[in-house]
């Protein structure tokens, strides 16, 4: 959130998120569908609701992780578009948009049914449809012109609605006639699963929490909590409503009613109960339909933002600031869908099932997207709520499988309509979006496994006299490690400031004095065939700043300059270098540049964990001037064994080189035999080399930064450039 563009207020707390999710879910679905559900599954339709709730819960779990990883508008569409690219994005976007319109039309016809039935003279299909249209037009008007804040009113109505259902259930339990529940599943398991496809629409709505993720306070906690909790609670409520309904009235007569819940309520709550249920049903239909229209406009907005549809649709009204065109388009299509109800008798079931189909397809792709995000692990995906181990990958796998099972049991006509919408998405992508949609998705990266992150070497530069040499060595290191994944050099300049402010980084970036350095670095980078990035940081502490950069860049290696002086002012190498050497989570090369040329490097191979790193580093440095390095090891003249020192030495070097993945022709071997003064022998042997690589010794004398006696001797007395090297795993606290 840049200061320039303005902040976005997060206004939704836990209660708001719950009412939003729950209020959208508890809609016409539970007031209209019990009849249809009972007709096709008998009392066991309660199980259909439970299965549908479970499928929704799986989707809620996957969506929770995705929403906390990318809290921006669009919900499912957005995640699928990011993960699987524009093709699937288009499929899911169109699917969700049409699905929400199916749902909205379904809610409004249900609204009409509940209004018409209690008024006996005004009967008939035309009237139901007419009322549905009037309701829709009112909603569209409100949404087109925008509303003053009305959340308090909404909370009251949703609270009242929930309360009425709770009373319905709590009282109804005592009126259940066990005879009605037998047989429990007259249509068998097939009927139960087929019914799941119809009633799944009753769970649409929890996703709205993901859709408005950008407006939720403390998203990492509230998004998963409210999504999961609202789905679970609503599932329990639905199952109970279904049990009570089929328990009070035989399922055959329940199936004939367009207003089943009200017919049940009249049995034990009397006319007052009917009024209450009708009131709740009307409220529920309006709030669900309203949310669907809004969610549809948000999907269109997100699609326009990504170029999947024209962004003409997501312009906000110049005066009301509402997405008026998206709302008008949504309303237009919904009107047509409601009008279809004039001709088609089973319109309610059809709309419900078609909406369910679209969302089941969308949620299967959401599950796939979660797997793709986990595998591709893009930089900007850091979900603060991640599914723990047994749930991942169980949730996405189960989610896809169950969605497909439910879809496979749906009515043929619905499968045809649904497939038609999927085809529409595909055709749309091919005809319109393909040229414009930039997003390729992460699928490729996910299949390849870890993304092709380049080998990244960070070089903190400060001293103009040494930066050229450091960059050259670093570039050689990066180049040698590229291995087909590319090499990247990150030159960092840290300006120490007592009290840094976030704005100073920008200023430092433009600083004049960095121009030469950058030019210099660019030349070297192009020479060595590595890419270069530069970073300028203003920070209170240089060492900490460098560690932060290493962390942010996920660096593989850091090449630090050093002046060759030990133990000054209580620091081993210096105030800046010490913390980096001690804590850097990657390979560290501490370089004291003493000669212009790199020449033939010498690697001092000791029998410790750093040996392979040293050997490899020597080979890397050799690449600068295209030489073959010498790997040198020191052996005592008589180790008591049978083998001679030369053989033993060669074995040590070969072992280190093999561990470093070097071929025998990439290095020469030299074995020095010395007994007492190993340091002196090494210094003498190193005299003819321009560059010497030596490991920070492992056997430390408990100093803050471990440096062995030989290493220290070398660093002090060798005339050529000295590089102290340690591997990522041999570090102090930075061990990873």
């Amino acid at each position, binding site marked *: 959130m840049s*200061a*320039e*563009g*303005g*902040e*976005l*207020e997060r*206004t939704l707390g836990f209660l708001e998120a719950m009412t939003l999710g729950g209020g959208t879910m508890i809609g016409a679905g539970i007031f209209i569908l019990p009849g249809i559900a009972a007709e096709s599954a008998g009392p066991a339709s309660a199980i259909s609701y439970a299965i549908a709730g479970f499928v929704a819960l799986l989707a809620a779990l996957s969506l929770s992780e995705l929403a906390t990883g990318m809290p*921006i*508008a669009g919900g499912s569409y957005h995640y699928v578009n990011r993960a699987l690219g524009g093709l699937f994005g288009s499929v899911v976007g169109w699917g969700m948009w049409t699905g929400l319109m199916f749902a909205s039309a379904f809610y409004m016809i249900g609204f009409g049914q509940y209004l018409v039935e209690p008024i006996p003279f005004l009967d008939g299909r035309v009237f139901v449809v007419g009322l549905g249209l009037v309701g829709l037009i009112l909603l569209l008007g409100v*949404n087109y012109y*925008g*509303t003053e*804040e*009305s*959340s*308090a009113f909404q909370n009251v109505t949703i609270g009242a609605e929930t309360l009425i259902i709770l009373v319905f259930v709590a009282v109804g339990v005592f009126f259940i006639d066990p005879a009605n529940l037998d047989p429990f599943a007259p249509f068998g398991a097939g009927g139960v699963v087929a019914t799941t496809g119809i009633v799944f629409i009753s769970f649409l709505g929890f996703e709205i929490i993901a859709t408005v993720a*950008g*407006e939720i306070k403390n998203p990492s906690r509230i998004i998963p909590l409210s999504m999961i909790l609202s789905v679970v609670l609503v599932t329990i409520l639905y199952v109970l409503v279904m049990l009570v309904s089929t328990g009070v009235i035989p399922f055959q007569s329940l199936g004939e009613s367009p207003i089943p819940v009200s017919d049940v309520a009249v049995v034990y709550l009397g006319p007052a109960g009917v009024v209450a249920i009708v009131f709740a049903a009307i409220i529920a239909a309006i709030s669900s339909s309203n949310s669907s229209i*809004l969610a549809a*406009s*948000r999907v269109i*907005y997100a699609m326009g*933002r990504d170029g999947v549809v024209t962004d003409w649709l*997501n*312009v*906000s009204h110049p005066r*009301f*600031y*509402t*997405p008026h065109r998206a*709302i008008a388009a949504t309303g237009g299509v919904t009107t047509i869908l409601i009008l279809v109800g004039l001709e088609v008798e089973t319109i309610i079931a059809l709309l419900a099932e078609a909406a369910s189909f679209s969302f089941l397809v969308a949620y299967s792709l959401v599950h796939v997207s979660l797997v793709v995000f986990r595998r591709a692990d893009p930089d900007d995906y850091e979900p603060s709520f991640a599914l723990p181990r047994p749930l991942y990958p169980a949730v996405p796998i189960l989610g896809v499988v169950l969605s497909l099972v439910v879809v496979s049991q749906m009515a043929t006509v619905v499968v045809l309509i649904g497939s038609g919408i999927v085809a529409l998405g595909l055709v749309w992508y091919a005809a319109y979006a393909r040229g414009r949609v930039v997003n390729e998705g992460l699928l490729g990266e996910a299949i390849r496994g870890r993304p092709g992150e380049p080998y990244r070497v960070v070089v903190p530069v400060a001293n103009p006299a040494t930066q050229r040499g450091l960059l050259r060595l670093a570039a050689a290191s990066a180049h040698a490690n590229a291995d087909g994944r590319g090499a990247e050099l990150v030159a960092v300049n840290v300006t120490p400031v007592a009290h840094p402010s976030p704005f100073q980084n920008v200023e430092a970036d433009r600083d004049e004095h960095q121009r030469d350095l950058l030019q210099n670095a660019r030349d070297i980078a192009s020479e060595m065939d590595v890419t270069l990035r530069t970073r300028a940081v203003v920070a209170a502490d240089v060492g900490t700043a460098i560690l932060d950069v290493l962390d942010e860049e996920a660096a593989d290696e850091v090449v630090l300059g050093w002046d060759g002086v030990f133990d000054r002012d209580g620091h081993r190498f210096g105030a800046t270098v010490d913390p980096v050497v001690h804590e850097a989570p990657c390979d560290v090369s501490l370089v004291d540049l003493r000669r212009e040329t790199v020449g033939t490097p010498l690697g001092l191979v000791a029998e410790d964990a750093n040996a392979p790193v040293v050997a490899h580093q020597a080979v890397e440095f050799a690449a600068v001037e295209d030489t073959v390095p010498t790997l040198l090891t020191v052996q005592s003249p008589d180790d008591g064994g049978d083998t001679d020192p030369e053989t033993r030495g060669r074995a040590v070097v070969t072992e280190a080189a093999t561990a470093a993945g070097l071929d025998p022709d990439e290095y020469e071997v030299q074995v020095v035999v010395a007994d007492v003064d190993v340091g002196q022998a090494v210094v003498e042997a190193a005299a003819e080399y321009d560059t010497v690589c030596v490991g920070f010794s492992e056997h430390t004398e408990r100093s803050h930064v471990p440096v062995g006696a030989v290493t220290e001797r070398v660093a002090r007395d060798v005339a050529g450039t000295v590089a102290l090297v340690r591997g990522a795993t041999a570090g102090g606290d930075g061990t990873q």
Partner: protein
Amino acid sequence: MTRIDGLTILVPVDVSTAESPALDVIDHLGTVEVVLLGYFPVPDQAEPAMVRDQHGAEAAARLDAVAADHGGLAETLVFTHDREATIDRIADEYDCDAVLTGGSTGQSAGVERVLVPLRGDVNLDRILAVVADLLLAGEETATLFHAVPADGDPTQGELLLAGAVDRLVEYGVDRDRVDWRLSEGEDPSADIVALGAEYDLVVLGETEPSLVDRIIGSFLGGVVDALETPALVVRDVE
């Protein structure tokens, strides 16, 4: 109770409309810190990011213009569904003691007379601390005001006001610059609104809204909306 050191006030400005608000009053308050909050009300129907995409630049320009008009104020721009929540959050973030509302009179030549309605002990310490800071930073005179409830005892009101005057004097305000008025009218909020018209600024204390306030609108909100004079609402942060 000690004085607030360096009074900071938050000035919310609706940046969705082209007319720039009349904020002359802040130029006359003397040396107080002013934080300018540009808020863009986003209807429930719209995605805040969408409105920002479209109107962000325009809103930022308006806010910059207002800030520049008043000598380069600290500013922040927020797109929000909920104006009150944003004001609360930003006031917390910038540690603001009071929030200024514009009033409807437009231009003000200066701030000479300040009306301070006091309701009781609620938030009293902070209101007085803010008034003291205001008076010490500028040249205004203040009138402390209390409306006695229909069945109330006027002497209690007198006691409240006299105590408040003493408190201001303790803070270092010249006694000549403070007077007080007691009203026994039927409708305190109407009295405040009527009286407020004679003043340049009204300082009011924020109170936690009760459940009734939330449903039928708060007393404070009603008074502030009706006032033609700019009002400074002292936050109740305790």
